[in-house]
């Protein structure tokens, strides 16, 4: 009996080892001929599009790209997902609430144990995981780094150094307002950018485990000591102090870029993925842009870099029930995070997030400042990404705050209410 068990276990081990070996030796066990459907963002860069082509060449598998328009990308993905349709590979957000919104472990294959996780430093401490703690998203692109774009000349003319905390922003606001320059070019006309300050500052303030405490009902988003409330309050204070542009309700983020580039305003709080808009504002002249605009981290009390993986180049593997395709999709993940990663970094011109690949050499000065902030500041993830629903109603609520219809406390209370709705929908116990 005992002997039989040992033989049985040995056979299983041999079969498993054989399977693993075939996986690792040729970079993929699928022998070609498998078609993988990929839902991809139409804003994919050429470098990302090259991944799909190179994967086809390397494996003999084919990729059927299904366009998800970048405008309304999340809604379009959710709508297709809601019909029960599933791709073999999904390019989507890699934050917890985004993964959970699509069903988390119920609908995605865990990527736990794959080499890229260990090789990505602390990135998967702040992103890529579902609420069950498993990694479901493979992040290949340098994440959005949130901070302050600033006009160097405006600060120099007023004897100021780049602000890195809320207190410094408030102090500089007095100087800049006296000079007739709005401290912050905020863009309510684009709806989402006003979330930047609340998200950055709350991320810098949140103690470890705060999101879990909210889920455990030990605290709430609108509690007096809530970091989220503090972040929203910081935004309201700057607004009330007249530190933002008067045309905040109609200004788009592109117009705010122009205001900072031309020196009509000092700062724009946003993420690094909008650098191309700054490059356009500078007529494509990266050197001129580097001389004109800088980037600094911002936290409530200390310089902090809030990082958020964008959807471009972030891949998840949905459960489809087709084991061959699921295996091929995992091999795709191995391909993009492994043998092809150096090519991708070279093609994309951005910084690697996976170890073992050198930084690109031809990088714009402004992007180098972003990287410097990323490397030097304390790195944190947004706290909204770890709670059910991801506080997706925040932009609309901040619009009401800007219009004077709601206070910071009202906004936080509404977010708590929305979280409760999402938690109940997720079937979390106690909600």
């Amino acid at each position, binding site marked *: 009996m005992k002997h039989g068990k040992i033989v049985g276990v040995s056979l299983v081990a041999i079969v498993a080892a054989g399977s693993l070996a075939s996986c690792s030796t040729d970079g993929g066990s699928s022998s070609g001929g498998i078609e993988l459907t990929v839902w991809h963002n139409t804003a994919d860069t050429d470098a990302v599009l090259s991944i799909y082509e190179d994967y086809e060449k390397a494996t003999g598998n084919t990729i059927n790209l299904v366009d998800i328009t970048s405008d*309304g990308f*999340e*809604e379009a993905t*959710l*709508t297709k*997902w*809601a019909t029960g349709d599933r791709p073999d590979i999904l390019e989507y957000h890699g934050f917890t609430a985004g993964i*959970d*919104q*699509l*069903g988390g472990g*119920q609908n995605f294959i865990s990527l736990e144990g794959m080499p890229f996780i260990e090789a990505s430093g602390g990135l998967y401490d702040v992103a890529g995981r579902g609420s069950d703690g498993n990694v479901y998203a493979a992040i290949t692109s340098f994440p959005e780094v949130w901070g302050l774009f600033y006009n160097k000349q405006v600060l120099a003319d007023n004897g100021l150094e780049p602000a890195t905390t809320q207190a410094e922003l408030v102090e500089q606001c007095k100087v800049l307002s006296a000079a007739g320059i709005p401290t912050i070019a905020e863009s*309510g*006309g684009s*709806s989402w950018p006003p979330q930047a300050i609340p998200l950055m500052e709350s991320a810098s303030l949140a103690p470890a485990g705060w999101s879990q405490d909210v889920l455990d009902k030990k605290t709430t988003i609108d509690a007096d000591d809530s970091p989220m409330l503090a972040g929203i309050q910081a935004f309201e204070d700057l607004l009330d102090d007249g530190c933002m542009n008067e*045309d*905040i*309700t*109609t200004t788009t983020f592109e117009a705010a870029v122009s205001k900072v580039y031309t020196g009509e305003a000092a700062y724009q709080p946003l993420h690094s993925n909008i650098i191309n808009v700054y490059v356009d504002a500078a007529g494509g002249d990266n050197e001129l842009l580097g001389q004109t605009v800088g980037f600094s981290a911002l936290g409530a009390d200390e310089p902090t870099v809030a990082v958020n993986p964008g959807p471009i180049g972030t891949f998840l593997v949905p459960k489809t029930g087709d084991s061959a395709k699921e295996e091929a999709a995992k091999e795709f993940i191995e391909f993009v995070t492994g043998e092809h990663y150096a090519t991708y970094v070279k093609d994309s011109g951005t910084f690697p997030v996976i170890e073992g690949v050198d930084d690109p050499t031809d990088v714009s000065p402004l992007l180098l400042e972003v990287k410097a902030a990323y490397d030097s500041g304390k790195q944190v993830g947004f706290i909204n990404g770890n709670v*059910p*629903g991801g506080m*997706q*109603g925040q932009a*609309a609520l901040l*619009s*009401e705050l*800007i*219009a*004077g*219809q*709601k206070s910071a406390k009202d906004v936080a209370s*509404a977010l708590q*209410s*929305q979280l409760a*709705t*999402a938690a109940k*929908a*997720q*079937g979390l116990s106690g909600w």
Partner: protein
Amino acid sequence: MPAIVLVGIFFVVPQILNFRFAFSNWTTFSPEIRWNGLDNFVSLIDQGFLLRGIGVTLTYAVIAMAVQNVVSLSLAYSLKDSTRINGFFRSLFFVPVLLSPLAAGYIWRGVLAPNGPLNDFIGIFVPGFNWAWLGELSTALASVAFIDAWKWIGLSTLVYIAGINAVPRELIEASIIDGTSAWQRFWKVTFPMLAPAFTFNLVVTLVGAFSAYDVIAATTGGGPGDSTRSLNILLRMQWGQGNFGTGSALGFTITVLVILVAIPLVWVLRRREAKL
């Protein structure tokens, strides 16, 4: 009969099949879709969305309907004769109808911007005039409703022109012989005879405006604050958050609103036509 079948297959049946989702817990978070009674409506009321959304939608619809009908009736009366110049202007006023609502919204977003041409023009008479038409609570809703009216004025103008030209010439001539003024002729003869056109335009513009979405999405996105958040804008917001059940509840509300308004309105206007 074929029309009834087509409407049944492509409108009534899908609507009925979709109604159940308004009373379900359908979200992206769970594969289960279960009946949850009126929970979605209670949630929307608790969050202040439902009543506010209905208020915004009704206000928008009434403004758009009023502006569209007053202006198009005036235009129709001016352009009723089939001359070459009138033909040119009829075509000109019809161009916005052919535009995508989103394109119309983006155009007007530029025109109404604080540094846009409208403020520049007013600035000629009021130096330094600066007003964010789409960015102020007091003017945003009226502005987007005006844009919607502008977009569809060409269509209702054509309907009114057809109605005016259908008025028997003998009636007009008889009233002239009776010594009526032009104003009296319009109100006492032409306007009553326009009743069918009036019914059509009033109902179509009002009910059409209940579905307000694209112009608002392209101009204000529902802001500033919640001042232009129509039911359809709210629906998209709920949908975007993965709350398909509450989104469906808002869609259901729009359908009920259309039925509650359109049926009595058509009934009243038809009775009015019969009396006239």
